[in-house]
Every structure is written in C-alpha cells, then in structure tokens.
C-alpha cells in the first residue's frame, strides 16, 4: 500500500508517494488556482503513470493521503475571502480595524490604510456585556441579536464571526448567538471566538475568528469537492489536511478551524525538517528554504520545531499556534539594481515568473540572483529544471554589464558582488531570526532546500560560523514528503486568571477539560493518543509570555505552583540571561496538545539512475574548472570546489567543503575550519 503527500504550491503541485519498502516516487503537476483539485488529480495521474498504474489502480493501492493547501492563504493574501458579518459586543465594533493603534512602515506616512477584514457596516454591535471574571454585566438582548441577524440575512453574508469581549472566560453569550445565527441563516458558516481561540486579548482572538469566517466557507467547499472527486476516482482511504502547527486533521476538523490551514504548505517543509532530524540529520537545524521571491527560515531545536502565535497573513492576525517561520524578502529571482543612493541593492523587487530573470530570455532586462549564478558558472544553462528551460548566458551577461557600468565593475565582478550581497543578507536575516528566539546559530546545521538554496547554503553557513550543511535528496518535493511524516494533532488553550500566583487547581481543571475535548475530537482514531501540557508564563508586567513544559504531576502536587515557577525561572534565564527568582510569575495560558501517532513511513531506499559526470568553469574569486557530479549518483565523499546537480537544484561546494552522501536520504556537507 502507498501513502501519498500532496503539496499544492503557487506554481507547482508536488506529490510524493512511499510504498511499504520505502520506495519513493515523485510527481510534479502545474497548479490550477481556479480549482486546485484539478492539479491534484492531474498530479495523481502522473504519479500513477510513473508507477505503471492508472489513477483508479493507484488510489485503490493507497492507504492514506496527506494534503497541504494554500486555499486559505491565497484567500487572505488576495483579500478574496468570503463575505463575512461580525457580531460583536455593542460599543466595540472597531477592534479589528483599530489594529491596537499600530500602522506598518514607520517612515511611510503617505501609506494609505488597508481595508478592514470586515467593512464597518457589517460589524454589528449586539447588546450584551461580560465582565473580566466572566460574570454578566448586561444579559444578551434577544431583540438586539435578532435585529443584527436581520441585517446579515438581508446582506446575504456567507460567514458570521461572533466575537464578544471576555468570551474566553464565559462562552454562554457567544453560544446563544451562534445558535440563533445557525437557525436564522441556514447554510452560512458560523464561528465563535470562544471556539476558535479561547484566550485573553480581544484583538488577536477577534482577528483570528474573523479570518476563520473569511476562509471557512472557501476551505470547506474546496475540501468537500476534493473528497468527492477522490472518492469518484476510486479512493476509499482517509484524507488528512496539513495544519499550520505541523500536525494533521480530518477534512471535517480542518473545515471548522480553516484559519488553522493558513500555513498548511510551509508546515510540510518544517515537518520534513523534523522528520530528517529524527532520522539522524541533526537535532539542531536551521531550515533554509530559498525560493524565487523569498526565503523561509525555520528552526529545529532538540529535534522539535518552534511554535509561534503571532502570525500575520495578509491583513489578518492569526494567533493560532503555528510553526514559527521567518520570511526574508530575497530569493533567486530578486533583482539587483543601483539605488538612488548610488549603492548596489538586491531585492525587494523580484522578477518572479514574468518577466523572469534576464537569462530566461522572456522580458527581463534587469539582472537577478539567478543571472549572477549563471554568469559565475554555478548553473548549467542546458540543464536548468532538468533541461526543461534553456538559460541564455549572453542575456544574463548583458544585464550584468548594464548594471556593472554604473558601479564601475565588470560583469563577472558584478555577478560575484550580487552573489556575495545576497549571501550576506541571508546570513544577517538568519542571525536576527535566531537571536529573536534566544539561539546561537553556530551549533546548528543549515538545512538547505528549495530550488535556489544549494548555491548559497555553504557560503551563508560559513558567514554565520556554522560548520555543517545538509541538503536532502527529496529537496524537490520536500514539503510533500514531510507531510507523510506527521501526526494527528489537536492544539487547545485556555487563559487563566491574569494576576497573582499560579492557581494550580484552576489549571488542573482546565487541563482535564482540554484533554477530554482533545480525546473526544480524535475519538474515531484507533491508535494511541498522547497528550502534552505547556504553560504560557511571564513576570508581572512583562508582555511576551514564555512557554514552559509542564509535568502532569505538578498539577496534583502540594508544591505544584513552586515547581512550575522554578521551571519558568530556569527557562527565562536560559533565554534572556537572567531570572528574578524572588518574584512569583503569572500563569497566563495553559495549553494541551493531543496527538495520535500515524504509522511511520519507511526511510527512502531507492536512488534513481546515475548520470554522467562533467566539468565546468566557475568563478570563485578567479576562474577554475571544477568537477560536476550528479546528486543522485553520489556514492563517496566529494571535496570542494565542486558542483553537485540534480534535476531541481545545484549545490556549490567551496574549497575545502566536504560532502558526504548519506543513505538515509541527504547530503551532509562539512565546512573547513
């Protein structure tokens, strides 16, 4: 039987299938944004073809499909969510548009405000009010609720977000309003803030709930159609959806918490990092996913990915736990240009697919990072994307010449300068991203994937003082492969009283309720369920919380509060160099993660056919001829300078770098001292 991972990206739909013997097959189809399920079905047919099967034959032999989707992300980025009405506490309907008083781009005073997620006319105050302790100040007024629902019915909204102040503490008013909305507006997607994110701080909770309503109807429609089409094509197994936190859920769960799929695609990449860490590639990794327009950075510490709850997608703030990914605004397609300051800049503009880099020979006339890499001999003009696109060296050199003239540099110096500058920017970006999380990158390995990473990874690692680079052989479809290495997961959270010493009894009750809820939501699962508890804590007036792992025994121990506090002091000192042990920290939120382990997929065992080895002139301070190896044919260590190519990526080894193929599915590169 096969398990299949499907990652729908902006350009390509990637598929990875693994059989019981660990044989991996991959397929790539063009993505079909108008209906992504077309691309998925096309990809499955290609995957079937590669295995000598037809589509029904493939699906009949498939026991599990895991799917990452960008439907929610695209709807939010393009402002094309469903039409949503918001029911909120009377007197507070502008919270999502006030954005806590913040505006982006400090020195751009001529930046006009972006439209609110829900227009003011559809944000409707309902007469009700709770107090901070959850008690009722003003009871929910049915007449006011009916009037609000009349307005939404007349408008024909597709989704309703119900967001009342203090509902995290007492969901009763939201539940009453939701029941009335479902009765009055059948078929409309109704979601409440106490369901989506029962956590204090109204801006995050409301914005997340509104985002859920904006994408819920769209995600439900899409997943429903995909499920139907797969069933019609002969698939009888389960379909799981990749969530932003790196776990998977059923279609029904993912539809209800649609905002939780906002990072579905990139989450597959991070899942792959975690899987590679588990398989021995290193427990401390910096994921370096360098694409065409941007580069994603993710961190693995002690084998585990970081979660964050401060994610912005388009105009929406989504505070659900999601994998902590930092995006840097430069990639292979970034354009190098002379700024008005007379200095060389790379990005933030990108040539994208159109006009594309100058060497594509389409319409691009400005040099990009890819043009520089071509002119330096790092890329093979005849073998880009497996030979599917021929690169025009002359066009790249002409573009570099035009830019170089303004800088007083020849085209090769210009290309080397662009390559060096983009490496420096990546290193600076990674340094800030790691420091922000209290990490020194030098003891980490840099794990490069994405089309452009191989040419830059060793130089970026060297600039950061890192000694090791890892490039997985599945780099081409790494996210899809990563999706096969995930578990079912439910992430739950409850806020606790916001002052005074930790109330362990209150925390224990919340944990018990959350464990019951998590187990109930995964009741259908026949494997073993595990749960883990973490606490968000801070010193009195601090605002950023620190997550502390909680031993369940503390919840019943007489000195539980002290043991929790001690764990917090230790963590604070580890992160920020000091602790205040004479102060009792505040327990802000308590979280429960319930996971159901999915059957592990075996490590990749097959290697495609070897290809011939050649030599090429490359520029590394001066021109030299270096050996070119095929990544999938390597069977012994290679010492740089050298190039290692596969169909989708090229890896540059600098002088003294030693690359060793690992049978578990990656290339380990050690940098010289």
């Amino acid at each position, binding site marked *: 039987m096969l398990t299949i991972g499907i990652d729908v990206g902006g350009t390509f739909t990637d598929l990875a299938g693994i059989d019981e013997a660990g044989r991996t097959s991959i397929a790539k189809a063009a993505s079909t944004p108008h209906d992504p399920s077309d691309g998925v079905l096309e990809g499955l047919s290609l995957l079937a073809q590669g295995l000598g099967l037809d589509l029904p034959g493939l699906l009949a032999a498939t026991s599990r499909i895991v799917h990452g989707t960008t439907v929610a992300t695209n709807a939010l980025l393009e402002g094309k969510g469903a039409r949503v009405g918001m029911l909120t506490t009377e*007197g507070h309907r502008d919270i999502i548009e006030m954005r806590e008083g*913040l505006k982006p781009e400090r020195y751009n*005073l001529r930046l*006009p405000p972006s439209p609110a997620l829900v227009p003011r006319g559809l944000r409707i105050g309902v007469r009700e009010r709770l*107090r901070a302790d959850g008690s009722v100040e003003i009871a929910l007024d049915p007449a006011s609720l009916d009037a609000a629902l009349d307005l939404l019915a007349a408008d024909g909204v597709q989704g309703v977000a119900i967001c009342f102040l203090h509902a995290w503490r007492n969901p009763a008013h939201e539940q009453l309003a939701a029941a009335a909305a479902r009765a009055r507006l059948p078929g409309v997607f109704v979601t409440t803030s106490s369901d989506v994110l029962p956590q204090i701080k109204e801006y995050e909770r409301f914005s997340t709930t509104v985002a859920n309503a904006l994408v819920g109807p769209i995600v439900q429609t899409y997943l429903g159609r995909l499920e139907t089409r797969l069933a019609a094509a002969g698939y009888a197994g389960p379909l799981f959806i990749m969530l932003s936190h790196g776990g998977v859920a059923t279609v029904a769960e993912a539809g209800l918490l649609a905002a939780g799929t906002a990072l579905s695609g990139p989450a597959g990449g991070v899942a792959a990092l975690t899987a590679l860490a588990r398989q021995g590639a290193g427990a401390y990794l910096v994921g370096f996913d360098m694409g065409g327009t941007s580069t994603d950075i993710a961190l693995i510490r002690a084998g585990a990915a970081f979660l964050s709850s401060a994610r912005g997608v388009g105009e929406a703030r989504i505070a659900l736990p999601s994998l902590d990914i930092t995006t840097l605004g430069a990639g292979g397609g970034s354009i190098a240009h002379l700024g*008005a300051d*007379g200095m*060389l800049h790379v990005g933030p503009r990108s040539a994208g697919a159109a006009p594309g880099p100058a060497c594509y020979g389409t319409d691009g006339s400005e040099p990009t990072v890819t043009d520089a890499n071509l002119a330096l001999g790092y890329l093979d003009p005849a073998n880009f994307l497996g030979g599917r696109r021929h690169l025009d060296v002359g066009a790249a050199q002409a573009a570099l010449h035009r830019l170089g003239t303004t800088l007083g540099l020849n085209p090769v110096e210009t290309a080397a300068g662009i390559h060096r500058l983009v490496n*420096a920017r990546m290193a600076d970006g990674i340094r800030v991203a790691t420091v922000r999380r209290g990490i020194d990158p030098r003891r980490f390995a840099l794990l490069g994937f994405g089309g452009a990473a191989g040419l830059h990874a060793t130089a970026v690692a060297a600039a950061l003082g890192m000694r090791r680079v890892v490039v997985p052989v599945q780099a081409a479809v790494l996210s899809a492969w990563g999706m096969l290495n995930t578990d079912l997961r439910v992430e739950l959270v409850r806020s606790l009283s916001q002052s005074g010493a930790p109330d362990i009894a209150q925390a224990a009750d919340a944990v018990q309720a959350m464990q019951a809820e998590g187990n109930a939501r995964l009741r259908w699962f026949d494997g073993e369920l595990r749960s883990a508890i973490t606490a968000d804590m801070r010193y009195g*007036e601090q605002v950023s919380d620190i997550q502390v792992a909680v031993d369940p025994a503390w919840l019943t121990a007489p000195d539980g509060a002290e043991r929790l506090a001690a764990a917090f002091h230790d963590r604070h000192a580890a992160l920020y160099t000091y602790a205040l042990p004479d102060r009792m920290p505040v327990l802000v939120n308590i979280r429960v993660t319930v996971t159901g382990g999915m059957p592990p997929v075996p490590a990749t065992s097959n290697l495609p056919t070897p290809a011939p080895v050649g030599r090429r002139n490359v520029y590394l301070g001066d021109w030299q001829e270096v050996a070119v190896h095929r990544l999938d044919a390597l069977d012994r260590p290679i010492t740089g300078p050298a190039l290692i190519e596969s169909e989708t990526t090229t890896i540059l080894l600098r002088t003294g770098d030693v690359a060793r193929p690992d049978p578990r599915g990656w290339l380990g590169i050690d940098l010289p001292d």
Partner: protein
Amino acid sequence: MSDPVTISVLQNRLNAVAEEMGEAMLHTSYSQILNSSRDFSIGIVDAACRLVAQADHIPIHVGALPWAVRAVADAFASPAAGDVYLLNDPYAGGSHLPDLTAFVPVFAGGRLVFWSMVRAHQSDIGGATMGGYNPGATEIWQEGVRVPPIRITDNGVIRDDLVRMLAANVRHPADFRGDLAAMIGAARLGERRMLEALAEFGAETVLAAVDAMLDGAERHARAIVATWAEGTWTGEARLDDDGHGTQDVTVRATVTVADSNVTVDLSASDPQVKGFINSSHANMQSAVAMAFAYLLDPEVARNAGAFRPLTVIAREGTVVWAREGAPVTMCTSHCADEIVEAIIVALANACPERAMGGWGRRLRVAIEGTDPRTQRRFIWHMFHARPGGGASANGDGWPNAGEWHTVGGLKFGSIEVAEARFPLHFEHHEFNPGSGGAGRHRGGDGGAMWLRVEAPATANTAGDGLRYGARGMLGGADGKVHRYTLHRPDGSERPLGSKEVGIDVPDGSRLHILAGGGGGWGRR
C-alpha cells in the same frame, strides 16, 4: 577605499546589528512601556557623532541621539573599552528626563570608532508626579532626577552604588534596575556585533564604508529635494496653552529650499513659557530631522548623510529651545509635533504631493487609586482612544493611529487585560466618526471612549489639542479638536483641561473621551 559590494554588505550588517539590539531590548525589558509599547530606540553613532544606523522604533528619539553622544564625548576625554555611560539631562544632550540613554564605546586597535546606544522611556523618573509628566512643573527640578553624562562603570564593572543612587530616586526601583540591565545588555550586544564586523572586514574598510553609506544617503536625499520647488515659505503651528496662563503658544518656521538644500529657521517662534511644553535643544533638532525624513521616501537610509541637506537655525530662549532650568517633559510630543507641523505647512508649497495632513495631538490621562478587589494601589496610563493620522496625496489618513511623534508606532493594550488588572470598565471604545478633517482625502478618525472608573481615584492630564486640532493641508480641513469630559455619579459634568493635576474621580465616574482626527489633504 571599499568596493561597492562591501559597502552594501556592511550597510546590511549595520542595520541587522541595530535590529538585533532592538530584539534583545524587546525581550529583556521589564516595563510595559518598553516591551509592549516599544517606547525605545537603538542607534549606532560613529566617533564624529554621526548617526550611522538605527532601528525604526520611535521617530522622535532618533535625530536626538547624535547630540547625546556629543555631550558624553565632551564630558569624558578618554573613554575606555568596557565603559558604560548614561545620560538623560535635557540641558546636556538629552531630550526629556524620562528618556534615559545608555552608551557603550566601541574600539578598534585602541581607537574609539563607534558608540552603541539604547534610549528608553522610563516608566517613572522621580519628580513630583508618577510617570514623569508634571503639568504643574515650572522648573526642571520638579520633573525628576537629572542625569548629566556619567560613567557608571569602574574598569568595566557596573558601579552598584551609582545604580542604587538612581534607583532610589524613582518610584519602582526594581523595574528601573531591570530595564537598565536590559538597556546595557542591548548596548553591549551592539558593541560585540560591531567588534565582530570590525574584525571580519578590518577597521579601515568599515570606516570607509560608513563614509560611503552616509554619502549615499545624502545623494538619495538631495535627489529628492532637487525635485522640490525653490523658494522661501513660512509655516506656523499653535499650542493651546502652557498650563500656566500663556495661550496660543506658536512655533514659526521659515523654510528655504535652494539648490537641494533646506534651511529651517525657527527663530521667530514664541519665547519660552513657564510650563513643560518647552523643548530642549536636542529634541528640537530631532523634530526638524523627523519632519524632513517624513517628506523624503521611506527607502532613504536614516543616517547622518540623509540629513546633510538640512540646516537648522533656532534661538535659545524660545519655546523650541529653552534656557537651562525650564521644564521640558512634554516636549517629545509637544512642542515637537508643532515644530514638525510648522515645517510641513511651509514645505507643502515646495512639495505638495509629499506634504501630509497633520497628525493628532497627544492628550494623556493617568488615573491612580486603590483597587477595591485587591486593596492594591494602581496607576493606569491611557493609550486608548488615540487621535487620527493625516491624509496624504495617496489616500485617507489612518484612524486611531496616533500623533506626529509616534505615527502608528505605539501600541495600546488589550481592554480585556486592562479590565482584569484595573478597576476599569470600557463601556465604549470605537472610532469617533467625522473627527478627521474633510478634503480630497479625509484625515483618519480619532477614537471615542466611555470609561467607567470603579474605584475612588484621582486623575492627571498632560498634553494639548483642546483648541487647535491637526492641521489640514493644501485646502483640506483641520481635524476636530479633542473633547474630554468627566461625568461624576452625582450627575455633574466637568470638562477636562489638557494640563491638570489631582482631578477628583469618585467611584463610578465615567470618563468620556472624544479624540480629534487627522488633517485632511487637498480641496474636495
């Protein structure tokens, strides 16, 4: 001479160092005003007191940093590696007392080459009123503890006696010490990163690259100014009063654009006043630089080079540059905002597509009392119901986004958290529709709030904008003025002034805030 690629690489590196220092500050500082509202700034300044790199935090801090370095450099002839300096004195390079600055010198081969600095607004700095803003002050000694340039290290070790002396003069010594540790830690992190860059590239290369970066920013700024009309224009902006009987305090800017140079002459501004709206010298310089930066492109590197086209003329003894001894605490908002607005009004003639409508006025309220639920003293600073931002040629203004000196950079806290921690009940907190000035593009609306105080309390106010609102530009209308009213439970109503202390707020009183909006842009 550095090659152009190395210059770009180093420019990125210096910006990353500043950003990293800011992150360290955000994560380690203790006070809410620093870690949540982010009222701090980072700068790398060279040995010639030129701003080299900064992180985008609070605009009004940044142009003032070089003046603070100059004061330290003047006071100490031979700084040594490991030294840490402090300063807040507005009459010795500082802006106002709450903004305390830590400096760490960076050496290359025994030569002082850079200063790594962190400026942070302290939640309290001593003085007659909690939180630093004392509208009753008529001299600086009533505003808090004054720190001229001092070295707080002895052979690289922090002198605990000096720290204790400072902490003894503020209301929350433990928080103060935590924040100070965070500031020094961030400044030392900057030192370490700059030393790494100096070792990696060599000092001569780094210093040559700095010259080239400054020249580049100057070229960029001049290319923009060269597109402006040449001529001389005047602009005015007015404050309601100084809180001590002087009304219509006016800042006057005469601005000349000629040959990609801009000269701002503030000499015709009103004489200094009795109350705390006077500006210190460094703050005035910073306000002028801020106005200029707002009219350039956001992409211009904000280093000393970008400000080379700018010449500032002012007269000591005026409200924009008070003589030693006058109170100045309000000045980072007022009269800084009026300095900015007067300059932009004048330059709207030179570059109308760049000039934006006025941003709102700051009018703060602090409420103190005892929480009946916990019997603990509390003090709450209002950051909600902000004024609106100004409109521009590109579109309407941002609603509820703040004032000229913060421009959407200061966050207000969660209502749910505030109600859980303070005896306060937010009955209403929405936009104040129609408060932004009309025009081809509308000014952003301010906020509207009804706040019930559920404890016997007293309140202070500090700010301006009850009589003069944010200025409309190029035919756009002014934003509405603020209106703050106290409704007492006995049914009586009382308008709040902008500079009051000790207002009696009986249990159950309701504060009604109607914040003004931003100025409109262009005739409708």
